[in-house]
Structure formats: C-alpha cells, structure tokens
C-alpha cells in the first residue's frame, strides 16, 4: 500500500468526520486465542463493530494464557491495563484475589442499565466464575470440558470398533495396548494438560476430593492437596507403566500433545473440547467420546469448566464500561453463542444458545458435540465437583508437572511423584496465603 495515499486519506477523513471519529469509544480486549479460535475472536469483534457505531472493540493477541495474564498484570501495575482481558481458568483465583483491580461483570452490566439475569446462563459455568455470595465476576467467554477424541482409521486398523469410544480408564489402557501391539499406530494414547484432565477433572468426574475445604472454594480457605489418594496413585501408575514402552506418549505440559494426535501417531487422545476446531480443520476421521471415568471412583459425576473468561479491569471511564456491557450483551446473543460454540467447540454460555443449537439439529448431524455440555451439566455438582480454586493454581500445576515428568522418565513411581507434589504444593499454598 502507498503510505502517502493512506496518510492523505486518513487526514481527509479526520477533517471531514472529526466529530464522528471522536464519538466512538475504543475498547481494548487482550486475548490468548490461536489458530481456528483466533479467527473466531476477530470475527466476533468485527461483527460487533459493524453492528453499531458507538464503540469499537480492538482485540489484541498477547501470547499464551499465562503470558496474557502476566501482560495484564504488568500493564495494571504500570497504569496501562486493557479494558477487557481474557484470563484462563486457573488464573481465576489470582484475579479474584485482586479486588481493587477488577470490576465485577455483574456490576458492569447493571450499571449500564441492563437487567442481568443469571438464570439465562449455564449454571455450572456461572457458578465457577462467581464470588461465594453469587456475584458474577467475569464473563465466561470460552468454556470447555475435557473429552476423548479418537482416530477412527487407527481403531479400524487395530481391529477395534470405530463407533465405540473408551468409556472407562481401563478401556483406555486396554485399547491403547491393542493399538500399540497391533502396530496400527506407534502409540496408543496421549493427552494434553495432565494436571487439568488427570487431576482436577479426574477428581470431579470421579467425585473424589482434589483438596480439602471444598477444593479451596470455601471463603478464606488454605486448602491442602489430597491428590496422593490411592485412586490417583493407581491411575498415574498405569500411565507411567504405559509410558515405558511408548503405549502412552507424553507431549508436554499444556496442549502440545495435540500435534502428536493430529500427526496420526496416537489412536486415543484426551483434550479440551476447545481443541476441536483444529481437529476438524485437519480433516481427520475422528470420533468423540465423553471423558473416561475410573471404576473405583464414585462417578461419572460432572466435569468442571476449563477455558477462560473475560475480566473487566477497574478504574475505567463510564463510557468504556457502557461499551463493555454492550459487547457482553452482544456476546450473549444466541446466534453469536451458536457461532462460537459450533465453530470452536467451546460451550455456549447461555441456555438460549444451547437450546437453539439443539433445535437446529446440529447435535444430530454432529454426534459427540453435545458431549462436553452434558458432561458438565448432567448432574448437580457435589462438594468435589464444583471446581478447584487455589490462590496459586498455576504454580501448583507447575509443581505437579515437574513431578510427573520425573515419573514418566522412570526416576520415580506414581506414589513418590504424587507425595512430592502434595508436599511441595501444600508448602506453596501456605506461602501464597501469607502463612
């Protein structure tokens, strides 16, 4: 493009429509979405901007989830915080602890004169992002739930039924062995996010405690981890055993294992429902099943939301908050939610969007796409399945991952790994609570 022309054009635009340009309020939105999901962010923002002329949402990609959170915190300390920031599930505890820094979403909406009807939203998700007194703090933009994906071609080659996903973890282990032994694929099973799927959701889904004091949800809790209970130890010992001959393949601490599955190296894969977009894009002949459960547990109960929510930073102008409220209102509309849900695999956040998707026949055409919702919504949550909230969950996950890596390389048993994780984790929680 010719820079001079651009300059001339914008100068002309400025002088001619100076008034109009001034009236528009810019709203910054920092996010961490990549691949298919970042296209969704861009489309939603530009559709919103086109739908009205008072506000302009500017989405800015800030890196991975932790990088985005850090960028937001650093910006806040420098007095340059964005208006809206996307914070991942585990950062929720960090944000909740920063009461002066954020503006509760419920307040943003009511201040802007909107009636905020909590019952319009999916209850499990809203509860997770609310204060103990029920005030909704952040807007659940992309909620996900871990599910099982499997490669139907590999299943067929291994002599397994391509229409039967594994139901229990024992099924996963035996199917993975069949895949490996039959030579259908070099590896049977892989998983992203061992901490989120195999600890936090494993606990909720099997209805066993992850930590004391209601998994840390009680106000002012200093919880202690309980992840070295026998059910966890047995589960991880199985994974460690399968890792020895490569039946289980480790990909990394976050979502790196998706590449392994997409490359056709492994037959079974557990990952966030939000990972669906890239799997659809790859053109693989895939199937979806619900998250496997452990027959020694009390499940299947319900899974807990992962993904991320949108937080509104404090200290902004009234005009900005009005714009944010208008944007959230737009985001809640059934057709926007339907688009988000059907394109990205994230859950719809309102009941209306869920019902509309159901009625449109989308789930009949795409079996398995309802799985993450029914998984999370199927049962009334128990003490063990409302969620996990620690003041420093990112750090706890790091500790757990370090111990898992030492276990998977054969340096320690599952019992040792989980004992160490509990001991180091509890010390870190106490430290974070200032004790």
């Amino acid at each position: 493009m010719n820079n001079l022309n651009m300059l001339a054009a914008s100068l002309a635009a400025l002088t001619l429509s100076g008034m109009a340009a001034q009236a528009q309020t810019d709203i910054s939105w920092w996010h961490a979405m990549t691949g298919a999901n970042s296209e969704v962010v861009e489309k939603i923002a530009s559709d919103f901007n086109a739908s009205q002329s008072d506000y302009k949402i500017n989405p800015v990609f800030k890196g991975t989830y932790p990088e985005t959170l850090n960028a937001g915190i650093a910006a806040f300390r420098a007095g340059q915080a964005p208006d809206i920031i996307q914070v991942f599930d585990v950062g929720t505890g960090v944000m909740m602890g920063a009461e002066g820094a954020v503006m509760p979403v419920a307040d943003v909406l009511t201040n802007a004169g909107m009636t905020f009807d909590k019952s319009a939203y999916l209850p499990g998700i809203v509860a997770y992002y609310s204060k103990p007194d029920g005030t909704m703090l952040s807007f659940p933009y992309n909620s996900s739930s871990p599910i099982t994906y499997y490669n139907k071609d590999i299943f067929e080659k291994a002599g397994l039924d391509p229409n039967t996903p594994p139901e229990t973890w024992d099924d996963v282990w035996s199917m993975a062995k069949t895949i490996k032994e039959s030579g259908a694929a070099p590896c049977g099973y892989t998983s992203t996010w061992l901490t989120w799927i195999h600890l936090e959701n494993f606990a909720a889904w099997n209805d066993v405690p992850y930590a004391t004091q209601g998994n840390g949800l009680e106000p002012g809790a200093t919880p202690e981890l309980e992840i070295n209970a026998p059910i966890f130890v047995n589960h991880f010992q199985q994974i460690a055993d399968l890792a020895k001959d490569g039946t289980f393949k480790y990909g990394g601490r976050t979502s790196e294992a998706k590449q392994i599955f997409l490359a056709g190296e492994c037959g079974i894969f557990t990952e966030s429902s939000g990972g669906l977009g890239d799997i659809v894009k790859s053109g693989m002949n895939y199937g979806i099943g619900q998250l496997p459960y452990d027959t020694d547990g009390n499940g299947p109960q319900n899974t807990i939301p992962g993904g991320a929510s949108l937080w509104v930073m404090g200290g902004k102008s009234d005009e900005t908050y009005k714009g944010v409220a208008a944007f959230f209102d737009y985001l809640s509309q059934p057709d926007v939610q339907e688009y988000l849900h059907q394109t990205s695999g994230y859950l719809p956040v309102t009941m209306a969007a869920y019902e509309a998707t159901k009625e449109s026949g989308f789930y009949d055409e795409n079996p398995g796409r309802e799985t993450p919702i029914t998984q999370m919504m199927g049962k009334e949550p128990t003490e063990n399945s409302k969620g996990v909230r620690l003041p420093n969950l990112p750090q706890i996950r790091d500790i757990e991952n370090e111990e898992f890596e030492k276990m998977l390389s054969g340096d320690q048993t599952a019992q040792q790994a989980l004992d160490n994780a509990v001991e180091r984790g509890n010390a870190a929680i106490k430290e974070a609570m200032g004790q």
Partner: protein
Amino acid sequence: MNRATFPHRFLPWLLVLPQLLISLVFFYWPALQAMWQSTLKEDPFGLSSKFVGLENFRKVLSDPAYLNSIKVTAFFSVVTAFLSMSIALLLAVQAEKVLRGKAFYRTLMIWPYAVAPAIAGMLWLFMFNPSFGTLAWPLRQMGIDWDPLLNSGQAMGLVIAAASWKQISYNFLFFVAGLQAIPKSLIEAAAIDGAGSARRFWTIVFPLLAPTTFFLLVVNSVYALFDTFGIIHAVTGGGPGKATETLVYKVYNDGYNNFLLGSSAAQSVILMAIVITLTAFQFKYVERKVHYG
C-alpha cells in the same frame, strides 16, 4: 588520559552522556528497584505490599530447588563456554589454512551470530522435537530413544548444543583476528627448528592467543549465564522436571508464572552479586597470567 585531546572539559562528558543515560535508565534504575523489591512481600497486582527485610533471601537460599538450579547453571555454563570456545578455536585455526575462498568460509561461519536466541532455540527445536523434529526420526531409526521432553540428559544436551552453536560465530571472529595478529615469522622460525604443527600450536599460537581467550572466557560466561534465556525458554521451558532450569530461567519462572515477586527479585539480586564477583575474580586473578605481548 591526555586532557589536551579535548578542547573543552565538558565535551567528554557530553560524548558519554547517551551511554550514561542508557545505563542509568536500563541498568541502575531496575537494579535498584529489584533490590528494593527483594525486601518486600507483594501480591501480583501490587495492591498490598509488606516489608519483610531479608526474609526472601533466607527462603531462596534454603530452597532445594534453588540449590538444584545453581548446579544446573554451573554445569550448563561451563560446558557451553568450553564447547563454543574450543570448537571456534578449532574452526579458526582450520580456516586460516584455507587458501582459496577464505573470506567466503569466514562469512558463512559468522552467520549464526545474527540469529536471535529465541529463533536459534526454535531452530533446534524444529530439528530435535521428538514428535515433529526433522532429525528426531533418523535418531530413533538408529535405535536411540530420543525424547528430550522426558530425558533430562538429552534435554540438557539439546540446550547446550543450541547455546554453543549460536556463540561459536562470535568466538570464531575473535580467534581469527587473534590468529592474524600472531607474527608469521615466529611460526616459521619454529618450523625451521623442527617443531611439528601440534607443537607450534601449543607452544606459540595458543599462549599468544591468551588475551583473546581470556576476553572470550569472560564474554562466554556472561553469555551462558544470561543470554541463553531465550534458547531455554523456546526449547525446554526449564524442563523436564527442573533439569534445565538455570538461575535466570528460575527468576523468570518464579516472577512471571508463580507470582513470587519478592523471591524473584531476591534471586536477581543474588545473580547480580554472582556476576560482579565472577567478573572481578576473573580480572584480578586470571588476567595476571595472561600474556598481552
């Protein structure tokens, strides 16, 4: 210094002013801030902070993970500095022997230096990532169980290789310059006296290169300690376990991911002390033995 060189007494100050300002803003100010922060206990958003004196230092120094990180750093730095310097010296000596296209070879050797650490890390990651690495597959075909995601020795090897590779160019450049400064007559005289090429190298060339080697030793130690952050961040992220978590990486990890700002600041103050000591020691003791010709 010869004062007469400058017509005005303020001119020298004016000339160094830009550098002074940069040092003040980007080095001294953050360093002082880190020292202040290392005595505080803060929440991530800085909404509340409490003075805790030397508590952060006490905690850091009694943390087994920190002691592990010291060991990791020492091993990583010594091996990286040794490898990058010895390979560069070998290449420089060999490049001197080339008769045709000397400049061409030299230019090729210098190229990697232009690569940013994070890019260098990605480059090596693309070659050796266990699932999509170009060279990981042939390694496995040769019967090597290649998995730096879990095997801590392989992970360490990978970051050392990437870090050394990137620094070889720089060292090469200085060794080539050093070699050119050695008078040919000395080497020819030794050859006439019957000294073989190995003997000529170790008794004449190597000692005369001492100033260059010493300079590079300082530069490489500092490089291995600090500038390799990008490589480690891109290749291993400090893992598996804490096998490649160097001191600098730990500062970042504790401050950025774990929000332990006081501890992170205390660690960077300790790091600063280590570097000051190291540099002072090198100049005081090692430099004495260096022959500046």
